[in-house]
């Protein structure tokens, strides 16, 4: 008797009611949504980490632009400005002939005698060390630099760069495919779940139509139901992803391969907010779309 006839309260209450009435179907759709969201999450995190690693490698893996030996000092200064003007160039650092000689000497260590006489007639060229903001643009930047005056040649580790950007791109593709798949499967599942509720409440819906309820009012509780399923799935998945990510991260960081490299990976706390937001948006959108689709037939009368 003491039911409160408040519209928004009604929508939310009815939405929750049907979530609990259709326990099995709701459970099944949450599990399937979690599974697909989890797969998406794995690839999303993998992609984020590969991008992160690439950024670090990009900072280390620059290209060495060798300057013509007969270039004048003004030409060398000009060149720096011109390189900096090229898109995607991050930093440009000058290494003089003396720097080059010094670094060679430090590499040789105890065998300084090999370098005897080079101090008077330094054969090492001066160079610019150029790093990029986007490693995939590597070959374009190289072409542009080679066109500039005073450039002799470019020495770079092209293979590493190409390999890394290939990996990054394929992960991006897989993530996109999984995302589309996730959306399609989840919508399908939610449509099916909500259709059951709609069917169970078809009497109520038809009465609502006869007394003049608007379609948006009738749809309300079902949309709420969809959103609840979506958001529960989002939170359950984020928990599972957090646990598995940390477990995997511990193993990876302990492995000698990573230890030998000077790169780091994201900790989960740095990513959790981003993943959670993505999940909640996905869950909500899928919930809303799913319930709209499942209601279509019943709203025609």
């Amino acid at each position, binding site marked *: 008797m003491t039911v409160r006839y*408040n519209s928004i309260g*009604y929508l939310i209450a009815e939405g929750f009611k049907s979530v609990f009435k259709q326990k099995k179907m709701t459970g099944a759709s949450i599990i399937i949504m979690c599974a697909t969201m989890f797969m998406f999450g794995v690839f999303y995190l993998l992609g984020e980490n590969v991008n992160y690693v690439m950024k670090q490698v990009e900072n280390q893996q620059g290209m060495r632009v060798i300057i013509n030996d007969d270039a004048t000092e003004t030409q060398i200064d000009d060149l720096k400005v011109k390189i900096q003007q090229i898109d995607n160039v991050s930093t440009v650092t000058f290494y003089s002939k003396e720097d080059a000689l010094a670094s060679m000497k430090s590499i040789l260590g105890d065998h300084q005698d090999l370098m005897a006489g080079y101090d008077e007639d330094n054969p090492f060229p001066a160079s610019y060390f150029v790093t990029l903001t986007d490693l995939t643009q590597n070959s374009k930047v190289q072409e542009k630099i080679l066109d500039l005056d005073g450039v002799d040649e470019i020495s770079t580790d092209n293979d590493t760069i190409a390999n890394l950007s290939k990996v990054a791109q394929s992960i991006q593709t897989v993530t996109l495919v999984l995302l589309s798949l996730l959306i399609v499967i989840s919508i399908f599942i939610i449509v099916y779940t909500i259709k059951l509720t709609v069917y169970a409440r078809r009497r109520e819906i038809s009465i609502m*139509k006869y*007394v*003049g309820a608007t379609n948006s009012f009738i749809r309300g509780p079902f949309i709420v139901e969809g959103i609840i399923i979506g958001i529960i799935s989002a939170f359950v998945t984020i928990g599972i992803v957090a646990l598995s990510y940390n477990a995997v991260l511990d193993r990876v960081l302990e492995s000698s391969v990573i230890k030998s490299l000077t790169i780091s990976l994201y900790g989960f706390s740095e990513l959790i907010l981003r993943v959670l937001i993505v999940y909640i948006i996905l869950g909500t959108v899928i919930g809303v779309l799913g319930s709209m689709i499942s209601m279509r037939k019943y709203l025609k009368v």
Partner: protein
Amino acid sequence: MIEFRNVSKKYNSSDNAAIHNATFKINKGEFAFLVGSSGSGKSTMIKLILKEEEPTSGKIIINGKDTTFLKPSKVPYLRRSMGVVFQDFRLLPDKTVYENVAFAMYVVKATPKHVRRQVPMVLSLVGLSDKAKVYPNELSGGEQQRVALARAIVNNPSMLIADEPTGNLDPNTAWDIMGLLNDINLRGTTVVVATHAKDIVDRMNKRVIRIDKGNIIRDEKGGYDGEI
């Protein structure tokens, strides 16, 4: 109030028209029977009035507005001007009598205060004040139809459409319901009743629109078969 102008309705599945060239007008405050044997086209007529079905040709004017080209989004507002009762009552089994009636109010976004005032009033009008907390399955058929009537009039519609309201009731109870419909009519509501119950129509002695095989064959005050 309700006007049909040369309305025909054909269903895709059959060659014969369910309604053939129907023209009539029911005025504000009138009480009219739509009579005919089952399959005559009565139900189609009701569905056309409720805009559950669209006419194949012709015009249907309700409250002075041509509803033929009414946008689907406007249909709910049209329906708020009519209360509907059916042969099978169509109550919600998991809601009490009070909640069943109140439900019709809050789906059209009535304020809680208005609901608290209006529901007891219509329940007393249909004589069910003492059954407010009871669930529909604890009520007799006649009482259930009274709840349905209360629900139909709780939003003060200007017309009441009843499709075979006494079809599931014994003669005495049926007569009670008709009395109630008459009371509602006397309060100023236009009432349209589709039925094939000859004895009731004869006893009420109201306007009768008789349909046979989709055609209106008689439209005058009197009994089921003609003037009494």
